[in-house]
């Protein structure tokens, strides 16, 4: 579904992502793991169009999307969450979600001023979509709560709901389980499975190894911007290089 060829990004002299060949298969959960600063988030920033790659190519369903801006990538069906949720804390959950479906609407300035028929239809579509995705992530009761007043885990769910409101094919999740407890983490894993069952393709960055080993169909391991391994969870947990570079020495892995 998505393929990168020799994808590279350098910031000044610092190569954050180094010639990564990678593939995300339709309908699978693909995980990206690696130590802090390995370039995982940067990799997401590249495929979601937020950053332009220094070199290399990105293909979405065969089409070259390498230099497309972020908003066009989103329209083509790639949605993402951010490592730190960027929700609007002062607004309600519902107000945050309504804008998620804006990209599928066409109404401009004047149709909004006169509240044309099409405008009213599109606005109610956005509201319906918001309610629908909120129900999907199991947070319907939060609709009218200000984001600032809901828990970290609830915010993570709302951020996922917001990504789903764009009607994506591929969802990129950047550390959705960071900062939440074990119970909540397994709840979130259930949600991600449910997304897969609903036909979505998922790519997830996560440090919580146990969760990843259970969820992922395939794993890519990044270290200092370079792909050092790729395979099924079973293959990765046996891989010598990975154990040495990552699983062996860091506290993330040991905690689980």
């Amino acid at each position, binding site marked *: 579904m998505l393929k990168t060829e020799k994808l590279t990004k350098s910031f000044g002299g610092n190569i954050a992502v180094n010639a990564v060949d990678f593939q995300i298969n339709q309908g699978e959960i693909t995980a990206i793991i690696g130590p802090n600063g390995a370039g995982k988030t940067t990799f997401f920033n590249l495929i979601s169009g937020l950053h332009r790659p220094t070199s290399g190519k990105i293909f979405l369903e065969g089409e070259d999307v390498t230099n497309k801006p972020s*908003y066009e990538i989103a329209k083509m069906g790639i949605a993402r969450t951010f490592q730190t949720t960027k929700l609007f804390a002062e*607004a309600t959950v519902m107000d945050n979600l309504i804008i998620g479906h804006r990209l599928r609407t066409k109404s401009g300035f004047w149709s909004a001023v006169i509240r044309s028929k099409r405008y009213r239809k599109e606005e109610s579509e956005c509201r319906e979509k918001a309610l629908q995705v909120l129900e999907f992530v199991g947070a319907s009761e939060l609709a009218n709560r200000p984001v600032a007043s809901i*828990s970290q885990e609830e915010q993570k769910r709302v951020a996922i709901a917001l990504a789903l409101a764009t009607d994506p094919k591929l969802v990129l999740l950047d550390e959705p389980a960071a900062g939440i407890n074990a119970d*909540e983490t397994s709840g979130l894993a259930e949600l991600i499975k449910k997304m897969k069952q609903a036909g979505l393709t998922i790519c997830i960055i996560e440090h919580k190894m146990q969760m990843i080993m259970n969820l992922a169909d395939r794993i890519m391991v990044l270290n200092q911007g370079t792909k050092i391994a790729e395979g099924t969870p079973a293959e990765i947990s046996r891989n010598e290089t990975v154990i040495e570079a990552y699983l062996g020495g860091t506290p993330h892995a040991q905690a689980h």
Partner: protein
Amino acid sequence: MRSFPASKWVVPALLLVALAIPLLTDNSYYLNMLIMIFIWTIAVSGMNMIAGYAGQLSLAHAGFFGMGAYTLGLLMAKAQMSFLVSLVMAVALTGIVGAVVGMISLRLKGHYFAIFSLCMGVIISLVIEKWESLTEGVRGLLGIPIPKIGSFEFSTVTSQYYLILFFLVLAMFVNRQIVQSLVGRTFISIRNSEELAEALGINVMQSKILAFVHSTVLAGLAGALYAGYLRFLGPEVASIEHAFEMLLYLLVGGISTLWGPLVGTALVMAMMQLLQSWQDYRMIIFGPILVLIVMFLPHGIMGALARLKMKRQSVLPETIDNENRVIEKGTTDRRLAGGEIDA
């Protein structure tokens, strides 16, 4: 949610009062004062669109006000064009220039955009002041004819009052429709996070340009009405002090609230008038008042009211609020726990 039945009547009541005022008094001092408040409210409401809702602080708006004023003034005084045609041209010109300036400058983020817009405002005011063969420079532009629509002459203060009130109501209506729509939500999402908005498929640059053009058009409209009312222009209409005054009105009234521009402009302009006899000392009184407002009402008057209302609504079911506290406390604990695992 609790509704406030009273608030439904506020707008029609205000409008009725505004319509009735000229019937109750023909004291042109007060009417003049109100006209000036209406005009500046239109301009400030434009600034609110780009600075408040879309989150891009623009200080070019005194410049666009001056551009609208001089366009109408010059077209009427020197090209003998009719009032309405000149008004449309003034609005169109500020919109077009706004689009061009926006395309160049809205790529800049935060302070850089504010500084660029400040420079833009200064450039516009310098052009007005120095292009003497066109604008008469510091001598001022005289001889703007009385605005006429059809055969009706807006020669009295009362008729001007109604003309300008009409445009104020129109501007506030359009702003309301936009703010409470998907378009306004798009602006707000950009203010919240450009990265998130872009990831949600919003063409951020295009939306920012739209908000900016809308805002410059309102500033230009206000300027044009000003020129048609005073029928005399000096280059100081575009001066940078006006941009800061507009920002002051906006902050006092409440940035990114619908009524903030009107409340702030009316309050500050009325206060300035009251203190006028104090001459140079008025700033000594006004300064501390301003500091107090910013300290105690950081979101302005309307912002403070909105927050009060929101608080009252969310406190109403007592249990929910208690629950919140438990959850919030829970989160901090969890965050600590999560931090240990993930550090």
